């Protein structure tokens, strides 16, 4: 039984400028992401992977092509409907965290819920639950300036999850983090995968991309390579790393 994909893109194109200065950021991209799948998009800088993510997340309108989310076409929606979509169905995680400095962690997390009209008590409860799930219960009342990079990004992920989104989009989530913080975020993504969350992540960091189900390489706006990293009966061969003969 083939389940219909959670995210589907067909013939996506994104152009900037016109005439001689036309830049094609995304060039005829087709993509299907099944529910619960984690897909990583990699490529050199300027290859268009962030633009692709913006298109999938409704932050940008494509010059051509279609984007479908859970069976609903989203590339032609009006601004208000798009906002509602971003509130309920899509969770975005940015490289620079993008938390509001003057709100505490729990206030940041409940922000999308309040925007979406959820009652403040419910929103607060859900936010606290999420922070607990991500190991940040002690930091709920702290301002973002008082949190470490890893903690901030985890707050940002909690914020992205509060609407129970159908897909989580992450743009270089570990780009601003050091090694320890990266591992913190990695654990979160691992747990999300186990919980069946659909994730599309763009990253330079092979640590994140290596834990995905599928890896897609982009260059000059187009897909050039695809690798399936899980499934297919792959057995970890750790001993090879240590140099022991099995």
């Amino acid at each position, binding site marked *: 039984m083939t389940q219909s994909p959670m995210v589907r893109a067909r013939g996506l194109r994104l152009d900037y400028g016109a005439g001689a200065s036309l830049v094609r950021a995304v060039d005829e991209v087709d993509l299907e992401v099944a529910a619960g799948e984690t897909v990583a998009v990699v490529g050199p800088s300027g290859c268009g992977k962030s633009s692709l993510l*913006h298109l999938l997340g409704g*932050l*940008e309108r494509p010059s051509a092509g279609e984007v479908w989310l859970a069976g609903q076409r989203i590339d032609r929606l009006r*601004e*208000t409907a798009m*906002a*509602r*979509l*971003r*509130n*309920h169905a899509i969770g*975005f995680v*940015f490289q620079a965290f*993008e938390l*509001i*400095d*003057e*709100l505490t962690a729990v*206030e940041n997390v409940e*922000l*999308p*819920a*309040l*925007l*979406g*009209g*959820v*009652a*403040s008590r419910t*929103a607060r409860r859900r936010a606290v639950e999420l922070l607990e799930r991500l190991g940040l219960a002690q930091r709920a009342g702290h301002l973002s300036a008082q949190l470490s990079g890893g903690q901030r990004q985890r707050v940002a992920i909690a*914020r*992205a999850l509060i*609407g129970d989104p159908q897909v989580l989009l992450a743009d270089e989530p570990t780009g601003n983090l050091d090694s320890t913080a990266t591992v913190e975020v990695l654990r979160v993504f691992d747990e999300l995968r186990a919980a069946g969350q659909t994730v599309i992540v763009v990253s330079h960091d092979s640590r994140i991309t290596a834990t995905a189900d599928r890896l897609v390489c982009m260059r000059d706006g187009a897909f050039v390579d695809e690798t399936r990293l899980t499934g297919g009966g792959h057995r970890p061969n750790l001993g090879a790393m240590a140099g022991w003969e099995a």
Partner: protein
Amino acid sequence: MGRIRLLIRLVIRDLRRRPGQSAMLFLVIAATTTTLTVGLALGGVTASPWDHTRAVTAGPDVTVTTNGGYPAAFLAGLPNAPGVRAAAGPYLLVTTSLRARGQRVDVDTEARDVRPAAIDQPAVTAGSWIRPGGVVIERGLADALGVTPGDRITLKGRPFQVAGIAVTAARATYPNNAPGLVWITTADSLQLLDADTTVAYVLNLRLASPDAAPAFAAAHTTDTFFATPWQDIRDEDAVLVLAERVVLVVGSWLLGLLALASLAVLVGARLADQARRIGLLKAVGATSRFIAVLLLAEYLIVALAAAVVGLVAGRLAAPLLTNPGAGLVGAPDAPLITASTVAIVIGVAVAITCGATLVPALRGARTSTLRALAHAATPPRRHPRVNALSAKLPASLLLGMRLAARRPRRAVLSVASLLITVAMIVVALTIQHTLSTANPQLGNSAYLAHNAFADKINQVATVLTVGLVLLAAANALFVTWATIVDSRRPAALARAFGATPRQVSAGLSAAQLIPALPAALLGIPAGLGLFNVVITIAGGSGTSVVTPPTWSLASVLVGTLVAVMALTLLPARIGANRPVAEVLRTE
């Protein structure tokens, strides 16, 4: 609802995040509203007291005054003339000289009964009605003399006491109508008579139809006496209010414009700051409408708070400038602030704020999410021609020109601020000169040496000018500070390449002075032109405008430049002397 709580939370936190900017916003509006409140209270634009006076004093429909002598038959016949319902008087009118507080002026004394009259019983606003030895002075005259109940005065050399102050609708207030009016007992007035005293009589009439008063008055005026309908008296009094009102309105418009310009720059800077936040909110699903409301709410909350503070401050400050007891007729202790003042002040604050924030807020709400997220602060403008031109100038002016050109909106604010302020100063000066030198009444003993009317207008003009100057000073400081912060890096770089701190601080000052000079120069003719407009609106186009002497205009110009320099030099000095490495390191 959760969304509203979120909105309030975001607004309050954002205001707290940048306390300096929020304070500046607040101060601009508060200064404007305070000045406006004081001006309105002074100008007495609160309500038209005249109709109230007429009602309270049972004002006459027609006042008939004789020209000396007592044509008994005619005056006797008037109360029975067709259209006349009632009459009161005739009252003896003796013109004599009054001395009070070292001043001397001619007055008309009207002999009255202690018992109240049916028509035109003056309403006492302070003290009590006439008694033997005690006179009541008309309020306009009392204000001009500065007398209060209990003061001792002399009439024709004889000592009297001021029993009270009253208003009437039977006669225009002093100095619109001169000589001023004093009510006195009949017995006392007889003391003032002698062989060469000028006497007249005044008769008050109530008509069956008050609207018919002008016709009646026209029909019954002869060369021995004239009849004045109540409409004429009202209009005469209105002139005074009108003149004040015009000055107030013009000054307020200038104030409002300046406040608008200041706010626009402040709002622009603040919105640029908030772009990232807007992008983030949109990315998590805020609608454009929510963003627009959020932005507007922030500024409107500040505006309303500042308006309230301005009203309170104005309420506290106004009595210092107005005479005590100068409240509305019939209610001496009535507050200076009425519902209409509150409405006007709040309305102005909201209007200015909306004017400054509506368009940028809507534009900000509509920005694409990505562009807002990726938003860097607006980079300074590049002007190749300015760069080429300034290359030929000495170092300080070079720096100054380029610094000013980096932020054109700020430069425009500086120019506008100075131009408006200088214009207002010139208007105030011109008013002063015109009223004092072109005063046709000088030499007429019915008028005091100083003109209460002129005083009032000057007061209003001065208050507005002071408000404008303070606002302009605040603007100058803000622009200076913002320029210094903005130019720290290029200035440090300039110093790293050999500019001395003195050159840099001179450059920072020059950045302010370069727009200041043309602004001040333009402000002078602008002010003169504006004054002509004021005069025309006030209906006094016949009045010859007396331009202030050249030396006073020149001193305004020089004073402005000196003030700008003083406001910018010290901060510029401080800013220019920070160690270069420190500046370059922290950026």
